[in-house]
């Protein structure tokens, strides 16, 4: 059996699956249930400063988009940080950590961007025995209007400043949670590192309007006829999150900085993808909010089975393994040639590959051959774009097959060159041309 034990910035947990700071980690009752179900750790829903508790709207907090058979694909929310009393949360955290010493318990914190505020709350959290803190610089709605959450995360200088305060006033490891609502995720990550953070976690939710009610012309979720942009999460955001994790992992300035991967993780496979792109562990929320805590059992056994099958013994064997393969476009091998190939036995003759190619791409797939409905790739037209693979409803019916070096590419009339060559050396690139003599 693969060993799934995880150590992230010194924090130990029996597996790399944590619940992200969100409604599922709002109070002891939920967290106890999560630990019983097998979750390795939780990031307790964000604590605010002492005082009158935060208030939430009293109408819908969530909106969603769905796929087939109403499978939830994307969720957004306009819920704020914890609306419970600070001391109630702290008391419960302490008790839960005592009850579950082998699980990770992290406190998410969001207080005003003033040194005194952070200085005041950190000792209170430390006293609970929490294993670390996560700085909520990501929440995109409500709190950001008050100068917190994403309002901090969008200004690298503020990130660095607050992280520095935290490192100064607590011995607990500091995880800085980043907002994706920026143009280049590397800048806030670099700032967090400059401030001395122990790790970053990402992504927080994305500004979004999930839908608009066409009867009332109000965005969803709608509160008395009005809506506010909420934070988008769930399976739909995973590709965005994967890229941001990879960008930080391969940035020379932040390479090696521990990353807690977050964003649409629903299955063990999603989690594994984050790990191999450089995440030291993962955090999950929407999948649990959709299906309940039991999903962690699928994640644990799925990851373990895959690791066993591939001979990976520990998480260290897989973490970051895909990072070297994430490249800038300019370094992709332009001498690599692939063609789509349709397995005629698997083809059900729906014609989608043909029409996608015919209407929107390269006119490289037949509809009729000798008067019979027959879909076949014309290699002299196929550019290997993969669209047909993506629209085919039958798995593995269409595959991309690499032309071996030395064979003729019928489209270009050139023989496939075994040598690696990229844009930086390509004759069409003005920058690659040798300087005039």
């Amino acid at each position, binding site marked *: 059996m693969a060993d799934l034990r995880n150590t992230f910035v010194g924090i130990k947990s029996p597996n790399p699956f944590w619940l992200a700071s969100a409604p599922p980690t709002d109070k002891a009752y939920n967290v106890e249930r999560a630990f019983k179900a097998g979750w390795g750790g939780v990031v307790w829903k964000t604590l605010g400063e002492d005082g009158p508790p935060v208030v939430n709207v009293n109408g819908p907090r969530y909106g969603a988009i769905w796929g087939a058979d109403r499978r939830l694909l994307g969720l957004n929310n306009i819920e704020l940080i914890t609306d419970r009393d600070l001391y109630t949360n702290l008391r419960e955290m302490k008790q839960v950590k005592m009850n579950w010493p082998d699980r990770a318990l992290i406190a998410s914190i969001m207080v005003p961007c003033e040194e005194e505020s952070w200085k005041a709350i950190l000792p209170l959290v430390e006293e609970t025995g929490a294993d670390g803190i996560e700085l909520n610089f990501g929440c995109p709605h409500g709190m950001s209007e008050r100068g917190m959450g994403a309002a901090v995360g969008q200004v690298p200088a503020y990130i660095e400043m607050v992280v520095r305060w935290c490192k100064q006033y607590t011995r607990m490891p500091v995880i800085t949670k980043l907002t994706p609502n920026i143009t280049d995720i590397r800048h806030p990550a670099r700032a967090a590192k400059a401030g001395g953070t122990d790790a970053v976690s990402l992504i927080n939710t994305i500004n979004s309007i999930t839908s608009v009610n066409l009867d009332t012309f109000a965005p969803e979720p709608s509160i008395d006829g009005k809506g506010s942009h909420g934070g988008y999460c769930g399976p739909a955001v995973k590709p965005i999150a994967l890229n941001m994790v990879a960008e930080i992992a391969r940035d020379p300035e932040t390479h090696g900085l521990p990353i807690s991967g977050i964003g649409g993780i629903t299955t063990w496979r999603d989690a594994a993808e984050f790990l191999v792109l450089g995440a030291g562990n993962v955090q999950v929320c929407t999948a649990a909010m959709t299906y309940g805590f039991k999903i962690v059992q699928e994640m644990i056994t799925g990851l373990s089975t895959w690791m066993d099958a591939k001979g990976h013994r520990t998480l260290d064997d897989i973490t970051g393994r895909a990072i070297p393969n994430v490249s800038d476009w300019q370094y992709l091998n332009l001498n690599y040639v692939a063609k789509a190939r349709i397995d005629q036995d698997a083809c059900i003759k*729906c014609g989608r590959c043909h029409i996608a190619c015919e209407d929107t791409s390269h006119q490289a797939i037949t509809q009729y051959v000798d008067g019979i*409905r027959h879909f076949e790739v014309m290699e002299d037209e196929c550019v290997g774009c993969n669209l047909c693979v993506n629209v085919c*409803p039958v798995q593995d019916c269409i595959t991309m097959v690499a032309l071996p070096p030395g064979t003729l590419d019928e489209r270009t009339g050139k023989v496939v060159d075994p040598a690696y060559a990229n844009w930086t050396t390509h004759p069409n690139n003005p920058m690659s041309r040798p300087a005039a003599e």
Partner: protein
Amino acid sequence: MGTTDSGMIGGRLTPGQYEVNFADLHPRLDEHEALVASDRCYFCYDAPCMTACPTSIDIPLFIRQIATGNPIGSAKTIFDQNILGGMCARVCPTETLCEEACVRMEAEGRPVAIGRLQRFATDIAMAEGRQFYERAPSTGKTVAVVGAGPAGLACAHRLAVNGHDVVVYDAREKAGGLNEYGIATYKATDDFAQKEVDYVLAIGGIEIRNRQMLGRDITLADLLARHDAVFLGIGLTGVNALRTEGEAAEGVGDAIDFIAALRQSQGKTDIPVGRRVVVIGGGMTAIDAAVQAKLLGAEEVTICYRRGREHMNASPYEQDLATSRGVTIRHGLQPRRILVREDGKVAGIELDYTTDVDGRLVATGETGMLAADHILKAIGQTLEADPLGIVALQSGRIVVDTEGRTSLDRVWAGGDCRLGGEDLTVSAVAQGRDAAESIHRTLMAENHPAVAVA
């Protein structure tokens, strides 16, 4: 309480049982079911289902419209090609047409529920009384449609759309043809056939004259004198006889009459059925009669078909439906004679075992006997040709060209009466519709005679 006594008896069941037995075979999908079912459609390009549909309904488009919450738009897509799309959704043998061609059959052996989705959309539009077509400005032309069955109604509607005045002459009490009189009750519940007739007629410009039979009340010559064109959608109203001893016995009848009586009966308790019923034939009519005999409380129902299963006109789906209702289907049995009791009532049937010799059916010499107090003949219908005069026939059907024109000028034909008819509602609709377009082109050309330009 019910009875299993011998003889032709009505009310074999309790009233509640009739309601259950003759309820809608496939009730309309609810909205969620429709969304789930429609999501299975791949929106194929040049879709095989569409090619397989005799009326060429744009199936991927209408299903996508359902999936996107637009059942009204979906219904219009259907009606554009097939104004009787509601009935076709109920009675089409989809398992041998669109659903057999569905690529999901290839993928996993379970097609998209095209027929039931079609019903979902058309039912919604019809329940809302949504009409999608308006009559074009009047052309001043008048067309006679003979027969208010699927072919005639489809023809009349398309003619009305094109601005012609249409008079539909029908022999029976009610319009609808086989939709009203020839389909098993559980396939068209809640008086659907009449509701559909009303829906089709709502466009206006179509007058229906009932109890007008060609050859009895009207003649082709009259119609040609009174109208600019005639469409014959007269179906097959003659019935084949067994031509065996005992055929006149009490308790021997035609399956189509049995089916028609059931459709016209409110409570079904008035329809007599035997304790042991034998149905002769291998088509849909045999199945519809046999299943309904069973549903009326017959103890034993046996279909006897003279050839092998592979030759049966009834689809495998229909055969399964029959066997699931307790009907026994026997093959290779051909009526030899009907056994009659002293009181003139049927007692049973003697049958020849048959075999196929080089494609020819021959009796083996072995015979068998089935006790029966009720025998239903479903061995095919024939064209009543006498009133057609000089209209050319072949193999007992009206000869038409690709546009539906008969040999007689200004006379078109479609549906079961025409050569190459497929005994399918949906084919009749396609032929009626296409004949209407041909009539329209012909009549409009008359208004604008070709002028030779020097």
